[in-house]
């Protein structure tokens, strides 16, 4: 077995040092009560070549963004990742190290996390950020739990245009009872509705921007109002590249910002692993969940970094911790920070604009197809269109022509007939004119 270094001789010598005759003696206390060495109905070991063959065949059964015309977003986006990102994250010292518990031999991880925390704070326009969460959805749920702790209130108001999975995660993970939750799914954000629902028991209002349907909003007045009622505004961002063109959530007055960071450095991976970003104001620092890196100095006065404020965390506080999170998204946050460093200010804003431009171009082309309507009054790199036929049928027929044309809204919201003909379409810097023309030609045939 290629991954197991012990030889038969080694094992015999070691057993004899221990003073047992065979390995099962070490399991004898278990064998007295339970079955050891059960018959396991699985194949025996395979060579590297055989494993590679098997998984390659499975991989070949999937259509993917590089062998199709690809326009899907909805919280996971296709972007070009510079080659050096994947090269660096595969360095042994990053790939095969643990959480940096011993700072003297983990400064590499600690320093990039400190840089990551700074970059995230700058992007979101907030004071501070943690060292990552699992993904945008769990970051959002943690933000809601955080708001409940800070305000000591239980009411949660979700904007009706938040990603439906995110809404489900908040409900499940943050333990909100039905009567404490306000949430209706429909197309356009109902800002007035959000204002009207805020009351003395409201812990937070959660708004996604750009929202699930792609629309962008200035949330400044909502933030002001929510805060005047003693509640917090949580802003959710599922496409972090939008922050290159939109007012930052911090500038609009957000109290907590939860983002999906996948767009920088991380492939779509059929849904994971991703990297969740969580930022807030200084005053809520001690309520943040998860790892945080801080600066300090060593015994010689040399500057260095450590995991800090661990009195919030499960390994110290146990049942009184702010969250149960332990392992987070270390390597994905590394990919994120490398990609952002490679882009820099100019590159990031440029990339953001190229995404917007791509979506603008696609919109222009799509609107030339008869009976197709754009529902957005604004968007960044994705938008929602209404078709003359059911969205799901359209998407499936487009897929037969190797065009992955978007997400039928009905896949995520299956109890609102009004949205059955709608699809959410994304276009990024990776989409060429050829891709767009394939979309249009295929769509014309499907809708003919």
């Amino acid at each position: 077995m290629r991954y197991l270094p012990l030889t038969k001789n080694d094992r015999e010598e070691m057993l004899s040092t221990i003073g047992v005759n065979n390995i099962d003696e070490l399991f004898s206390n278990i064998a007295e009560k339970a079955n050891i060495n059960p018959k396991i109905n699985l194949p025996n070991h395979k060579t590297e070549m055989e494993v590679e063959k098997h998984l390659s065949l499975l991989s070949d059964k999937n259509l993917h963004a590089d062998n199709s015309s690809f326009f899907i977003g909805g919280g996971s986006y296709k972007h070009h990742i510079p080659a050096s990102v994947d090269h660096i994250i595969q360095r042994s010292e990053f790939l095969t190290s643990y959480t940096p518990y011993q700072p003297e031999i983990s400064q590499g991880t600690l320093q990039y996390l400190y840089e990551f925390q700074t970059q995230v704070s700058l992007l979101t326009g907030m004071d501070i950020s943690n060292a990552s969460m699992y993904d945008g959805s769990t970051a959002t749920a943690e933000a809601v739990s955080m708001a409940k702790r800070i305000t000591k209130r239980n009411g949660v108001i979700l904007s009706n245009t938040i990603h439906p999975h995110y809404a489900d995660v908040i409900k499940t993970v943050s333990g909100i009872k039905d009567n404490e939750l306000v949430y209706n799914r429909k197309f356009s954000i109902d800002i007035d509705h959000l204002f009207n629902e805020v009351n003395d028991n409201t812990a937070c209002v959660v708004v996604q921007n750009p929202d699930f349907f792609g629309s962008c909003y200035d949330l400044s007045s909502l933030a002001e109002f929510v805060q005047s009622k003693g509640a917090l505004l949580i802003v959710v961002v599922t496409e972090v590249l939008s922050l290159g063109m939109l007012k930052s959530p911090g500038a609009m007055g957000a109290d907590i910002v939860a983002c999906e960071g996948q767009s920088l450095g991380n492939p779509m991976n059929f849904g994971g692993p991703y990297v969740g970003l969580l930022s807030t104001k200084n005053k809520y620092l001690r309520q943040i969940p998860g790892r945080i890196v801080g600066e300090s100095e060593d015994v010689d006065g040399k500057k260095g970094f450590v995991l800090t404020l661990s009195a919030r965390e499960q390994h110290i506080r146990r049942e009184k911790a702010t969250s149960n999170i332990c392992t987070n998204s270390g390597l994905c946050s590394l990919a994120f920070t490398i990609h952002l460093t490679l882009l820099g200010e100019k590159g990031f804003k440029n990339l953001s604009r190229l995404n917007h431009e791509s979506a603008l171009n696609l919109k222009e082309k799509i609107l030339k197809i008869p009976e197709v309507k754009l529902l957005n009054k604004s968007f960044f790199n994705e938008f929602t269109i209404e078709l003359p036929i059911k969205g799901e049928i359209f998407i499936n027929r487009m897929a037969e022509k190797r065009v992955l044309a978007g997400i039928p809204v009905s896949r995520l919201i299956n109890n609102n007939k009004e949205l059955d003909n709608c699809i959410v379409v994304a276009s990024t810097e990776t989409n060429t004119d050829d891709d767009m023309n394939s979309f249009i030609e295929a769509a014309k045939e499907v809708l003919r």
Partner: protein
Amino acid sequence: MKNSNKGLNHDEPILFDIGGMDKSGVDLNEPTFKENFIGECFEDREIGLPGLSEPESIRHYVRLSRKNYSIDAGLYPLGSCTMKHNPRLNEKLARLKGFSEVHPLQPLSTCQGALELIDEISVWLKELTGMKAVTMTPKAGAQGELCGMLAIKKAIESRNECHRTKVLVPDSAHGTNPATAAFLGFDVVTIKSDKNGRLNFDDFKQNVDKKFAAAMITNPNTCGLFEDDIIEISNYIHDAGGYLYCDGANFNALVGKVRPGDLGIDAMHINLHKTFSTPHGGGGPGSGPVVFSDLLKDFCPAPLLKKDEEYYYLVENLNDKDIDKSFGRLCVFHGQMGMFVRALSYMMSHGSDGLRQVSEDAVLNANYIKSSLEDVLTPAYEGYCMHEVLFNDDFLSGTGVETIDFAKALIDKGYHPMTIYFPLVVHGALLVEPTETESKNSIDQFIETIRELASKTQDGEEFFKKAPIYTPIRRLDETKAARNPVLRWQKNDVIAAE
């Protein structure tokens, strides 16, 4: 900038001191659109993100990387963390475009291979654990715990027994266990360990009453010991109408050898980033699938993977009839696919024969270390251990050296220290988990090093107190970091936070 490099050890400034607003390592076309469609919240703001050209970025991160210890460079005996070799085949396969470039919301007809892979790994996990069902979505071990406990909560609700709010957790448990239970509103009661390092069954029984909901037990536990009474405990729990959650962080001791399903467990998470070799990545990403018994399988979270003849599909919406008992959804999309690919590659490479050898070698290595060190260190408990061996600090008594000093001295000898001060049930704990991927030579050298250090403790504390001295940075002031938190770079080095 003053040059303070030492040979191969290069100091590396922080990105914000070397990057430039006008620098970039990516060539992009210039956008040409005239009017944007962002609307009222458009802003052309100065963000403040420094950039680096490609050669500068590579050098920045390569120099940083060289300040990290890693399993590839040496034995990493962190107890309860299972730092085993990460096969590179897994990395290669996870990067196949048919996995990495697939969107989670593609039409199901276009991602049958991805769904088939999830089905395959599910079969492996169910068979290896002897459990009835598995949910693949939890993003890490702690989220797996949340998943298992949410299922238990839902099961209790479905029986209209919401008065059951008490969760028993041994004092040796990982901090995530009590944190998870408390996060869900359960009342956590801590059960003491007995003198043999196992859960005190008498104390346990006394705490089982009408309010009893569940117990969260790690097996093998964090003392590296199998809970011998586990079957009696699970029977007792079920007779009392409760559920047994098992923290599966230490499954590496059992894989292929003992099935949790034979022990009366109702739910258990599996850390793919421990037992099944997906890389730790400096703190994630992990993956924490949860296996369920018959009692809990209906309460699994969305999405549910199903197969209709040869066609795979997902039940994704919480109002779908197929999952009407589900407790909800844990994360957007379907879980850590990139980790599933790696873990399946690992499982297939080992096969059922190799996986049994994994647990046997892991247990053999730990016991070999124990036997080879028991005359110089002080094992916390008698008898054979499982995949990790726990020592207390009795061997240091009277020397002035503390566990932390011993650990830091080990760094100067080229090792990552073992887990220290955990579990909490042992004074000055040192928890050593070698894993099965260390050779006998490697383990012998580790033993030799520990013996040398142990004998050095008799020469006084000074050597230990000043360690480490050969690292890029020496012991850091953690109190200062927490008291005056500086959590990000600021322009002009203005001190941040509170």
